[in-house]
């Protein structure tokens, strides 16, 4: 990904840190120093991001006046802010995404007792600028405001560097730039389909204080009038909140299963209960092997997993065996657990969908399906026993957040692994020659929600091209794949096309999509993973499910 740093101060150190921390994933450029307005006003790069980091006193000379203990005109200050917002909104149409850190003033600067006075205090004026800017850019989806306050807090008292400022016009120490880089890269991690979807937790001295097998669940350090006990409760509360946002929780613990589960079910101060965990491996086996087993059960990739354990030996073992799993260093001080979890920049979800909030329930339902599968004599009989119902509708505003998320997160069954921005997807959905449909799947065990997408390009007179063929791993292997191809057949046929083409862009992870297409009955091109269906024959709808087509998505 290309990234342009646009600033009114020297960002060379920031550029180096971004290059270093992204390990080559970011191609970082720096715009000419202090040329923010001409640079953003004169052009852009539709495939690149810009990081626009400015000082507020450069945006409004009125704030400069206030900093110099003069009298600022609040009306002009807001007009200057509006002009900057206009510049950003106009530039956003020419860039993929604009990242805009909120403004800061040196925290130790003192401006007397009136510094927060509504119409004349420096900090009050800055707050008004921030508010005005946030409000103005809120409706431009590809402008992302970033919380720079957190970066300064992380850097501590050395966040501002007068020495670097006077020597190089760099206001911040590298600690601030590292925190900013981590925030930006966390967003990039999510766009690359590497968002954390599962947290695997140890139990003893991780979820509670003490060893349940030795101490008994009644004597665990959890809640009560005890500093450490309270800290564990807060840590569990944060985990529960993440679960509500769609992050799955699982347990990997060396314990007697029945003893540990009894503690989770019975301890009166447990915030997390058995139903909050999607699955567990509580035994005396190798923890890394247990996690690999969990991933297989949940059909998740290691890159989507966070592992939390107080034991450095276990952390080291998991890092070595599953290098893609995120294993943060964990503090020895239990009072710091909650803050450590909250500070991890890996949960930056763009939008929380209904499916996210219900994800743990959905996995529990899937377990019931798998149980039914073991008692069915063949796969089709099992599928029929599920009573599957697929609803197809054009993607519209109600579907937008989930469709965007599905396109950006799905790796395994994804024809091209294109990762559109919200802006690109909205443009795409407004193009009548490139329609897109959503698939919702439900069965007798529950509703999996919006789990499939089909996009077509109908511009060629003879053939339709499949631009998007995406299916959540939640419903893979249930012949929804064939349903997607049947839908493509029906839509292309309705437009008078003679054939449909699906060109797969291979990645390290979309082999399931390739394998399906290879066995789908579509003819394979000799020179690459391109598949064609001749519309002289109808691609059949699987007889294991019911298909319902709507003009608009069902209300949820």
């Amino acid at each position, binding site marked *: 990904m290309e990234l342009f740093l646009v600033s009114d101060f020297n960002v060379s150190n920031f550029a180096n840190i971004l290059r*270093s921390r992204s390990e080559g994933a970011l191609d970082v450029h720096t715009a000419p120093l202090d040329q923010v307005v001409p640079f953003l006003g004169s052009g852009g790069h539709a495939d690149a991001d810009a990081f626009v980091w400015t000082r507020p006193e450069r945006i409004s000379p009125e704030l400069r006046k206030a900093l110099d203990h003069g009298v600022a005109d609040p009306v002009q200050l807001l007009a200057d802010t509006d002009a900057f917002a206009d510049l950003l909104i106009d530039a956003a149409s020419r860039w993929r995404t604009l990242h805009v850190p909120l403004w800061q003033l040196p925290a130790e600067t003192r401006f007397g007792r009136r510094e927060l006075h509504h119409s004349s205090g420096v900090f009050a004026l800055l707050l008004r600028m921030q508010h005005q800017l946030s409000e103005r850019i809120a409706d431009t989806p590809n402008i992302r405001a970033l919380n720079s306050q957190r970066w300064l807090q992380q850097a501590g008292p050395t966040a501002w560097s007068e*020495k670097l400022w006077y020597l*190089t016009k760099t206001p911040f120490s590298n600690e601030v730039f590292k925190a900013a880089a981590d925030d930006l890269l966390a967003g990039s991690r999510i766009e690359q389909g590497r968002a954390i979807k599962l947290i695997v937790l140890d139990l003893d001295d991780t979820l509670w204080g003490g060893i349940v097998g030795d101490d008994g669940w009644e004597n665990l350090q959890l809640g009560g009038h005890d500093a450490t006990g309270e800290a564990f409760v807060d840590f569990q509360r944060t985990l529960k909140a993440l679960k509500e946002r769609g992050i799955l929780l699982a347990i990997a613990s060396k314990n007697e299963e029945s003893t540990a589960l009894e503690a989770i079910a019975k301890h009166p101060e447990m915030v997390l209960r058995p139903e909050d965990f999607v699955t567990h491996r509580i035994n005396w086996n190798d923890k890394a092997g247990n996690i690999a087993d969990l991933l297989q059960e949940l059909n998740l990739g290691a890159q989507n997993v966070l592992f939390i354990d107080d034991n450095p030996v276990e952390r080291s073992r998991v890092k070595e065996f599953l290098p893609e799993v995120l294993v943060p260093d964990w503090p020895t001080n239990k009072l710091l657990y909650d803050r450590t979890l909250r500070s991890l920049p890996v949960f930056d979800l763009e939008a929380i969908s209904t499916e996210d909030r219900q994800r743990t329930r959905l996995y529990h339902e899937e377990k019931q399906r798998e149980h039914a599968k073991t008692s069915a004599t063949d796969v089709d009989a099992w599928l029929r026993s599920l009573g599957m119902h697929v609803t197809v509708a054009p993607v519209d505003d109600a579907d937008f957040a989930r469709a965007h998320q599905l396109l950006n997160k799905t790796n395994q069954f994804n024809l091209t692994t294109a990762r559109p921005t919200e802006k690109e997807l909205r443009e795409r959905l407004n193009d009548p020659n490139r329609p897109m449909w959503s698939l919702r799947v439900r069965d007798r065990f529950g509703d999996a929600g919006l789990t499939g997408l089909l996009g077509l390009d109908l511009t060629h007179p003879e053939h339709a091209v499949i631009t998007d063929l995406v299916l959540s791993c939640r419903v893979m292997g249930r012949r929804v794949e064939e349903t997607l191809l049947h839908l493509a057949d029906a839509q292309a046929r309705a437009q008078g096309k003679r054939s449909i083409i699906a060109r797969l862009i291979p990645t390290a992870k979309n082999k399931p999509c390739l394998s399906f297409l290879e066995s789908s009955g579509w003819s394979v091109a000799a020179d690459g993973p391109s598949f064609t269906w001749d519309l002289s024959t109808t691609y059949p709808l699987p007889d294991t499910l019911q298909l319902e087509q709507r003009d608009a998505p069902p209300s949820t």
Partner: protein
Amino acid sequence: MTATPELLQELTLATLRRMNEDLPAAERRNFDPGTPIIGDSGVLDSLGLANFLVGMEEAVEERFGTSVSLTDQDLFELFTEDDITVQAFAQRLSTKLQA
């Protein structure tokens, strides 16, 4: 603790190596006592030099509990050689600190 040339050389190398961590892999360098860091053959550019001097001021204060000012003077008044190596830098800094 006395800021001997040996200790300051160790501190200088540690500061340079810490700076390396903030650079892209292709721009990282190997430093040893003979590496010229300042001057015509010096490996630090102007930004690198500023980062280095600020880093050294902080490192000296942290290690020896004494403040030294390297950023508010012309370095070539302090160091007379054209090219200043790590070893020469540590030697002169030790002299300055003990003066």
